[in-house]
């Protein structure tokens, strides 16, 4: 008998701090698998976000930088410009990338920085206790929108990937989901593509990953996946955006 599935080498065996059923664990593994498949661990530099994945560098076995909340793409821009031969990616949540860091996101994309972005959209602020995120769905209850997101009070879920599609510097945008094993495999292909693009010097690539947050959605892990399937992906349709 031989092993057909195990922990990829760029992922440490350390247990994560994530809640049961959290999508970050899957997304971390997918990134590690892609890095292993492409054989680029020794030349990869990650920029971690502020949010639940703030200590992603405790779980990955390659060089990592911290960035202040929202500034990952500014930090990554400089790392990549100083070391164009390295593979540089950011891993950011919706608050980080699409609220406090919107400016950095849009301008790094518009400059066509040759970077890969893994954008985790779970429609909530997890780290701070389940507050309204830019991507929270209309009607979705959060700790700062107890009656549900109201378009008059909070505006609409921000579709940053669609916004970025307008920018000529962006070469690849795809929205994927983690709501069942088949979708997880598709997510991996998209992440691999984003890294491959960077290896080929094609410019800015971003993969938006719809990811479950059972804790702050108030659902069981399985119900959370089904909520992505039945509700969330209606607002955030899956597939290639650019």
């Amino acid at each position, binding site marked *: 008998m031989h092993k057909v599935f195990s922990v990829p080498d760029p992922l440490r065996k350390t247990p994560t701090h994530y809640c049961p059923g959290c999508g970050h664990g899957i997304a971390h593994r997918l990134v590690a698998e892609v890095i292993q498949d492409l054989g680029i661990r020794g030349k990869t530099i990650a920029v971690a976000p502020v949010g639940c994945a703030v200590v992603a560098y405790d779980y990955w076995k390659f*060089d990592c930088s911290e960035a202040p909340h929202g500034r990952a793409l500014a930090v990554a821009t400089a790392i990549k410009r100083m070391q164009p031969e390295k593979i540089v990616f950011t891993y950011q949540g919706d608050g980080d990338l699409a609220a406090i860091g919107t400016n950095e996101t849009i301008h790094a994309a518009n400059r066509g920085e040759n970077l890969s972005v893994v954008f985790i959209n779970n429609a909530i602020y997890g780290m701070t206790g389940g507050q309204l995120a830019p991507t929270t769905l209309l009607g979705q209850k959060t700790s700062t929108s107890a009656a549900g997101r109201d378009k008059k009070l909070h505006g609409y879920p921000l579709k940053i990937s669609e916004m970025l599609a307008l920018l000529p510097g962006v070469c690849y945008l795809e929205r994927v989901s983690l709501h069942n094993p088949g979708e997880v495999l598709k997510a991996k292909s998209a992440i691999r593509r984003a890294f491959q693009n960077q290896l080929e010097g094609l410019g800015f690539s971003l993969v938006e990953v719809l990811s479950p947050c059972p804790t702050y959605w108030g659902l069981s892990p399985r119900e959370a996946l089904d909520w992505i399937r039945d509700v969330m992906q209606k607002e955030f349709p899956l597939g290639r955006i650019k």
Partner: protein
Amino acid sequence: MMNNKKILLSGNEAIARGAIQAGCGFYAGYPITPQNELIGYMSNHLRDSGGVFIQAESELAAINMVYGAAASGARAMTSSSSPGISLMQEGISYIAGSALPAVIVNIMRGGPGLGNIAPAQSDYFQATRGGGHGDYRLIVLAPDSVQEAYDLTREAFYLSDKYRVPAMILGDGVLGQMMEPVELSVKKAKMGDKSGWCLSGCQGRQPHVVKSFFLREGELEKFNLKLQKVYRRIEEKEARCEEMFLAGAEIILVAYGTMARIAKSVIMRLRNEGKKIGLIRPVSLWPFPREAFRAAGRNTEYLVLEMSYGQMLEDVRLAVAGRRKIEFLGRSGGGILSEGEIIDKIRSLIRKPGGRK
């Protein structure tokens, strides 16, 4: 030395040229008056020496790009003026918290708020107390001539690398804009080895992490104690100042940067009249050159002069520790003390009852 040519430069250009001479490999900035010649020079010339220039979308982005470049092991710099430096405080705190070297230039203008574009020295507190959140310090160097702007910029890169503490060049609109002859250095910059911690890909070694986040109990305190140790070493070794006519001085003027130039003119005029006036010009604002304040005679009085309403004054008070009288004269918000205003103040001190004749 005679081979080194002198050329006419503005303070802003001198800082830019000093940085390139020091091996600055990365610059990111956002336009703001009165330092636009600096970003302009970098945009045109940094590439010639193999460096990377980025005009950032904001000061926030600029300082975080500096973070990324510094984490990559490069000598990295940004420049701005007061309101822009306020925006950068987040990134500066992270740079300090991640023990990264970087050089930040603040060509101060009037505040608070948008203020105006006239020269001022009202960011002294922000520069010398850290400025952002957390217990940290910047090495702060304050040139008073274009030549010194050039020299201290090179020194700032060197000190920042040596201690892995961010350094700031603190000037003002006058210093940034005025032109003076500068003797350029032909010395090649010595670059330290950063391979032990910088991010370059983990090929053949354990992964490096550049961060300021220490969640495990006790870790952050330990890191802070380490920082404090470095700061104490810097205080011991790197304080610098210019002293003029201190022996026998009855009044010692204390001023830095542009204000010190005016103070020097005042001293020359009054010494011609036989008045015993000296000068302490702090060149490093942090560490503050406290030792310079120990030598004063028993009857010496200090007169602190600033283009602010009394910020360095607090450091002078701490250094003097109540042993001598301290007077203050300052203007800000666009006003600069004239020689006449300072001389009037000095005469009033000399004339006052119980004072010297």
